[in-house]
């Protein structure tokens, strides 16, 4: 016992070194940790676009070149020093690396994480270290639903809205939905997406029955059996939260056997693939972008600028992970500067930034983000869905019949978890 007491004392001494706080003089650079997949299968579709967005946003912020309302240099005049690390590797590695970022490298804030598992694992550590952390792409609703967090934020809306919106959009296309199937990767993301979609349809189209529920292994690559199963079913739509590699493989293997002619495909994360697939993405496919991102984003100056610099630098238009990264950093900037303002331009402490971030409203490149749920730590925004169309003339992909759903139409209210909300029949949804 005394040993522990002694330890505790020693620790207090140590903690006076105050790891992971933003303290410093106003102009000192802000050390910003960026965590994203640089290797492995998730690097291509999410990790690299995320990192790319971080690069150009930070560069331009430091150069003060970002359009209003983000024209100020860096964070409240302080330049940003990014440190980018790979998210690949076990959860244990991620937790270790997060500690290293905060405690060894003294990052003032960390923006990152694509894998929901990593987000769930890092959150408690962020709390323990009192380290300001913004998750940019992970989708699980569980983060703020299990216990309230103080230092963790997520500007990007969680995955529930993707599937609720998908359900709503599907019904605008197919009025009399009788039977539907789903093929989702056999891991949390796939399972949650399918659950939310099914629950949403239970409310919106009670008559519709679930036909086939397929959960192939993550990165299975070979979907012959699944495609047959879907071909032998008679469902009008096939829901899938597949992404990148698996998504493209599934599209090839299903269209080669004429599945798209039989049932409408719904890809909640389809936007990342459409530029790569071009004419190979079947027309009429329903496509989501986990927000009103990419081609569905409104034509605002900020968005125009973002697409411009991104395409100039990387040759392809930014996909939704890029938007997620951009809006996460910009949200942090907004919070930071709000806190700084309150302090008369002085450098805010972590807790002050946290206070400013809670419930904040700010403009992302594609939509207004409101940190409305999860005690003001979880952002909600509008979301858009569209139908894919290959424009032969210009040889570029298009989304037609785009419908934009307001945040409160597809997100649970602050006082409910996603599942409760869906099971109760989405009370209070305003569309």
């Amino acid at each position, binding site marked *: *016992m005394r040993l*522990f007491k002694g*330890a505790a004392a020693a620790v207090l001494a140590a903690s006076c070194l105050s790891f992971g706080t933003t303290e410093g003089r106003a102009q000192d650079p802000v050390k910003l940790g960026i965590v994203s997949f640089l290797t492995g299968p998730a690097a291509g579709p999410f990790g690299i676009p995320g990192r790319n967005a971080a690069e150009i946003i930070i560069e331009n912020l430091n150069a003060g070149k970002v359009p209003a309302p983000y024209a100020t240099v860096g964070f409240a005049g302080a330049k940003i020093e990014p440190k980018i690390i790979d998210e690949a590797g076990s959860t244990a590695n991620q937790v270790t*690396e997060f500690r290293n970022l905060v405690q060894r490298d003294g990052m003032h804030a960390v923006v990152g994480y694509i894998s929901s598992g990593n987000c769930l694992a890092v959150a408690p550590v962020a709390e*323990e270290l009192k380290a300001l952390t913004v998750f940019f792409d992970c989708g699980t609703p569980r983060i703020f639903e299990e216990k309230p967090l103080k230092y963790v934020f997520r500007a990007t809306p969680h995955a529930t809205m993707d599937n609720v919106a998908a359900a709503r959009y599907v019904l605008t296309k197919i009025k009399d939905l009788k039977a539907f199937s789903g093929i989702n990767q056999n891991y949390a993301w796939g399972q949650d997406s399918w659950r939310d979609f099914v629950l949403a349809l239970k409310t919106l189209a009670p008559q519709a029955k679930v036909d086939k529920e397929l959960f192939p292994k993550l990165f299975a690559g070979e979907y012959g059996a699944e495609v047959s199963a879907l071909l032998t079913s008679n469902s009008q739509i096939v829901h899938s939260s597949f992404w990148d590699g698996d998504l493209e493989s599934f599209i090839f293997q299903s269209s080669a056997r004429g599945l798209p002619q039989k049932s409408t495909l719904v890809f909640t994360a389809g936007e990342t693939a459409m530029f790569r697939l071009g004419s190979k993405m079947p027309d009429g496919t329903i496509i989501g972008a986990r927000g009103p991102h990419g081609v569905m984003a409104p034509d605002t100056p900020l968005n125009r600028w973002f697409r411009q610099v991104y395409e100039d630098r990387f040759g392809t238009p930014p996909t939704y992970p890029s938007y997620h990264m951009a809006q996460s950093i910009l949200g942090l900037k907004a919070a930071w500067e709000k806190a700084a303002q309150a302090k008369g331009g002085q450098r805010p402490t972590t807790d002050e930034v946290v206070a400013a971030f809670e419930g904040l409203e700010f403009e992302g490149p594609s939509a207004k983000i409101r940190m409305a749920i999860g005690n003001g730590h979880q952002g909600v925004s509008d979301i858009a869905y569209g139908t894919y169309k290959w424009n032969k003339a210009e040889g570029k992909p298009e989304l037609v019949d785009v419908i934009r759903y307001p945040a409160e139409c597809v997100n649970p209210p602050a006082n409910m978890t996603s599942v409760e909300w869906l099971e109760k029949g989405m009370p209070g949804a305003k569309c």
Partner: protein
Amino acid sequence: MGAALSLAAVALAAIAAPFLPLWIVSLVTISIATGLVVVGLIILWRAGLVPFGQALFFATGAYAVALSSRYLGLKDAFLLVIIAAIAAGFVAWVVGFLLARYREIFFAMLSLALSMILYGVLVKSETLGSTDGINVSSATFLGFAPRGQAYTLAVFWLALGLAVAAAVFVSRYLSSVAGSLAIPIRDNEIRVEYLGISVTRLVHLKLVIAGTLAGVGGAVAALTIAHVDPAMAYWTTSGGFVFVTILAGAASVPAAFVGALVFEIIRTASVAILPGGWQLILGSVLLLTILFVPEGLGSLVVRKRGADKAKGETA
């Protein structure tokens, strides 16, 4: 002499911990978790058995902690570690009846298959968070409930204690009749049988000990990472353990922990140096170890060392 040295190191670590930056402390704690598994691997390794599925027991221990704290509301770290040890030991005892009959690559393959089955089950079980896994709430230590940075230290000290206990126990075992028959088993099972002792049961015992240690390692990991997920049972995790065993060599028990620490340091360094290519560095290190520093490889690579070590054991 080696023992004295290691004890000194342990004592130093224990005292120095509070004054070290915490990222180092938790780095060491995680290394100890790995080290505990590797100590178990050494026992099997000496008998020429290399499991590519030790993650099975590692994950069992980790989930045992996570579940009993989540659903049974058990919070005491010591209790949780014991539960984990028993759970993993039990699993090892059960699968042991099967595994103990296999040797060489077939042993490796079967253990891999078993761990992948657990992986599949965990991924399927959405109530356990599937691949996202579940968080482990902070444990208490005999009623004392440190928080924040004190907690990191508490877990570290616990891990250190467990490491010492494991090291002592295993060295004791390795110098016992059953323990020192490793090389005889590798050399000539028929002769062992005709001396009147069952090779299968000797191996089974080794499996249970190794499994239990892996479970304890998993428990430590769960406590320090505060999160468990199915990847803990994936074959690459097992691969990592074997990797460390190679690095450390089977010659000495403390080496296991040193090896684990070195491994963690190399890994985290590579991530810092070459974010896009840390596997490349890791792989090269493993390769170079095998090719040019076989001493690190303990007895398996060069028979001579096997024999010298055996002298240490039997003579």
